[in-house]
């Protein structure tokens, strides 16, 4: 059997689904009622996400 890109994508989808199932079972439950405002701009809330450019301790 010749492997095609379809097989690779199927494997990737399986891994991502497994990652998300694992994540949901090992994380704080999702709560849309405690979600931040739709847009950070104009929300009055400080940016709280993590970014690759953030230096340690910043």
């Amino acid at each position, binding site marked *: 059997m010749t492997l095609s890109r379809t097989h690779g994508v199927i494997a*990737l989808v399986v891994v*991502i689904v497994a990652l998300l199932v694992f994540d949901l079972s090992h994380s704080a439950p999702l709560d849309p009622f405690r979600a931040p405002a739709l847009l950070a701009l104009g*929300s009055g809330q400080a940016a709280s996400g993590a970014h*690759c450019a953030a230096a340690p301790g910043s």
Partner: protein
Amino acid sequence: MAHLAHDDRESTEHRPQRNRVWGRIALLLAAITLVLALAAAAGARFGLLLLIGLALGATLEGLRFGFAGPWRAMILRRDPSGIFAQLLAIALVAAVAFPLLATHSGELIGAHAPIGFAMVGGAFVFGIAMQVVLGCGSGTLVNAGSGNPVALVALPFFAIGSFLGAAHLNWWTSLGTLPLATLEGGAGLGLTFAGLGLIAAFVWILADRHNRRLPRRLVIAALLVALLALGNLVVAGQPWGVVYGLGLWIAKGASAAGADLAANPFWGSAAHAERIAQSLLTDVTSLTNLGLIGGAFIVAAWRAGLSQPIPHLPALAWAATILAGLALGYSSRLAFGCNVGAFFSGISTGSLHGWVWFVAAFAGSIIGVRLRPLLQLEART
């Protein structure tokens, strides 16, 4: 009777086309359903971030806007078109991001990081590795989404490298780091435009005169990428990034497997421990990363481009892919970002480390382009 036979034949001939149309509709419906389901389950912001990621993935794959490929084209063929498109997109983002960051400094943050020994070395190594696998931070995700086997193998090692690089980041930065330096306000924006213009002029001079052009496809791509990157900033409060999310995926797994990350100076710090405790579906870069993969997949499936056979590569090429994947992740953490987080978002939000990253990574790319055939990832030229 003849009529019936003709109708049957026509119906049979049109069936594959009709199936393809239904397949495309199903793809779009599935994507919209996922976005809406996430918005309902986790919050509207997170659904919107997934949508932005999907649109970025579709744009990068559909309009062939990238970073590693255009740098390679400039090095090998002196074709500057892709680099011109990158500079245009960065300038467009900067034109809006600078004023936004100045007026909403509490709500929005730039991709600001200090310059240091490890940062420069990390960017140099990243430049080598991204040419070996021909995929940068965003490119590896997009290529994986479109079924590229090298990217599919490199991606998990990219994530492991990102996790390890972050775990060791404090030690590396302690080797020597300058104070944070950023460009701000109107003067900063003017200097950013001048710098981008200088690079464009330099690239123009070095380019083959027959290649000195910016195709309409890339102009449209640059506009869309800039718009979506600004969307990321406005929605998330932070610029577009890639590598943090990949490391976080491994950190979650390691934590669940019993690894004591609390003792690690990076992953054990309050902000990152909080991210590990929360779902990836509420993490900005994880969502846009998943979107990049999904958007590229949609375009590849839309074009029926997933039927290409996987090429037979020698063991050396696969070993090089694994090592390059690890290097991509590890080095991008030391460099405070990849082509997206450091180069694109760093420069467009005023961080001087983005400029240094560009120079170091391009120097690394010149070596990486030469290494790729030696590692049997392509026919020798």
